[in-house]
């Protein structure tokens, strides 16, 4: 059996497990993120309109769509990272748990401590060691922790990110010395170390090789037992493998992205209700 076969088999297994779990307890969960009438702009240009979605807790929700459909923007609106870009703003109601994140008096920093984020390109802090990267969240927020508490936190989260065994012998080497896949798992460890309710992932595997990608996907399924995950992906196979729910976004002629269809991943990929969804998932455009 070649390595590729192994990966393929493992992926099939992953999809089966997902399906089982999905059928067992799929519809009885609470709502982790509730989005109503969300719109987003870059300066005068509108890029997202009328987005309303309910993201179930402790599940994986995928956002798919062609380039320029506003997938990443939608994701970045969920932890108020969209507004970091100069001139960018968002409007609408987004609730995470009981926090209305665009509500009056709500600080962006508060929101970001409820939500973790993993980016497309692995971005460990190059001046920090593996240990310091894993501990970066608490430190950057100014939490006071004893050495021992930090040691525990680092180990626990490197384990959760399935990286511990590979780095435990030398936690003080630079995070930048790891392989791409390891760097991305380190970024995941860093993002979950502050125990966010929601983990946002913006094409987390698109810069990785197939084996590293598989490990990330496996990790996503594992983490979904305890954290709500929203993942943007270009890769429809990936969406069908890892997610429970899928939202399909599409931009109109003036470049404004909207949700075309949102539902169970299996339903959306097998019997889509909108002809545009069908056209996209069968590869007729995008």
């Amino acid at each position, binding site marked *: 059996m070649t390595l590729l076969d192994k990966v393929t088999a493992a992926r099939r297994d992953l999809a089966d497990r997902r399906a089982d779990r999905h059928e067992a307890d799929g519809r009885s969960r609470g709502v982790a993120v509730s989005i109503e009438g969300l719109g987003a702009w870059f300066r005068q240009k509108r890029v997202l309109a009328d987005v309303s979605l309910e993201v179930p807790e402790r599940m994986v929700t995928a956002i798919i769509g062609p380039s320029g459909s506003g997938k990443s923007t939608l994701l970045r609106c969920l932890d108020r*990272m969209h507004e970091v870009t100069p001139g960018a703003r968002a409007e609408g109601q987004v609730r995470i748990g009981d926090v209305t994140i665009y509500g009056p008096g709500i600080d962006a920093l508060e929101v970001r401590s409820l939500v973790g984020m993993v980016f497309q390109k692995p*971005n460990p802090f190059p001046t920090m060691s593996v240990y310091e990267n894993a501990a*970066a969240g608490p*430190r950057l927020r100014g939490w006071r922790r004893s050495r021992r508490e930090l040691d525990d936190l680092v180990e626990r989260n490197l384990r959760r990110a399935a990286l511990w065994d590979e780095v435990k012998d030398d936690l003080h080497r630079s995070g930048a010395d790891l392989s791409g896949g390891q760097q991305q798992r380190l970024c995941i460890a860093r993002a979950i170390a502050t125990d966010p309710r929601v983990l946002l992932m913006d094409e987390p595997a698109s810069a990785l090789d197939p084996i590293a990608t598989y490990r990330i996907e496996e990790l996503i399924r594992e983490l979904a037992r305890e954290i709500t995950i929203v993942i943007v992906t270009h890769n429809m196979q990936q969406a069908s493998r890892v997610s429970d729910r899928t939202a399909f976004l599409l931009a109109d002629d003036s470049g404004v992205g909207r949700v075309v269809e949102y539902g169970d991943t299996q339903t959306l990929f097998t019997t889509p209700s909108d002809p545009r969804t069908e056209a996209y998932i069968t590869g007729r455009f995008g």
Partner: protein
Amino acid sequence: MRRRRFADAAAAALTGALSLGAVAILLLVLGHVVTRGAPALSLAFFVERPLPFGEVGGGVGPAVLGTILMGAIAAALAIPVGLGGAVFVVEYRSGRYADIVRSAAETIAGLPSIVVGVFVWAFLVRGVIGNYAGLAGAVALAVIMVPIVARSTEEVLRLVPGSLREAALALGAPRWRMIARVVLPTARAGIATAIVLAVARAAGETAPLLLTALGNVYFSTDPFQPMAALPLQIYQYAVSPYDDWHAKAWGASLVLVAVIGTVSALLRTLVRRPA
């Protein structure tokens, strides 16, 4: 095909020859300073004060001390201002005001250093302090250093990947802590280079010191009194009609190069040490 290959080879040869020119200039200058300056060197040359013409011996001790003192005071004044300005322009960039800060730095960088000297002379020597003083010299040097620190720091801050800033913000870091814990450490080596550049440039300045620190043949650490400096000492020795003083001018030049080289090397090893 052959022509293209020929053109490529020609371009490589030409740029190679020109790059040799840059190396040659450096070697020529350094070589000359070392061969002419070395004979004047002795331990006494470093630690003794200059003697009037005709007396045997004497050195540039006060000038070494003065250059180090004024350099240190100037750095202490200029680095926070230059660094702070660069951080503001890159990390907070609130539009028009940031543009004003940047063009102010560019304008100062374009000022002839003698003009800076005249200004500090009018403002401090004739005004606040009332006489020629080491502190006035340090302020003049600081004015020259600020734009160098600011511009070079701005450039290295822009080289810090935006993805690192986003990672820090997404972790819930306030902006200032993102700057202190992520941006500045990442740019550390580049900022050190910026500071070295500014210190080296300021340590070699003569014109602004003529009108501010004046020079001193005695050891003085009082910043409110005239202070010696290596460039001033070199100038004084070099314009004299005596062969012995000319030799001392070369010796002092070598000492100046050595002081700048030592400070640069020191700063660089300091930042290379793992945090």
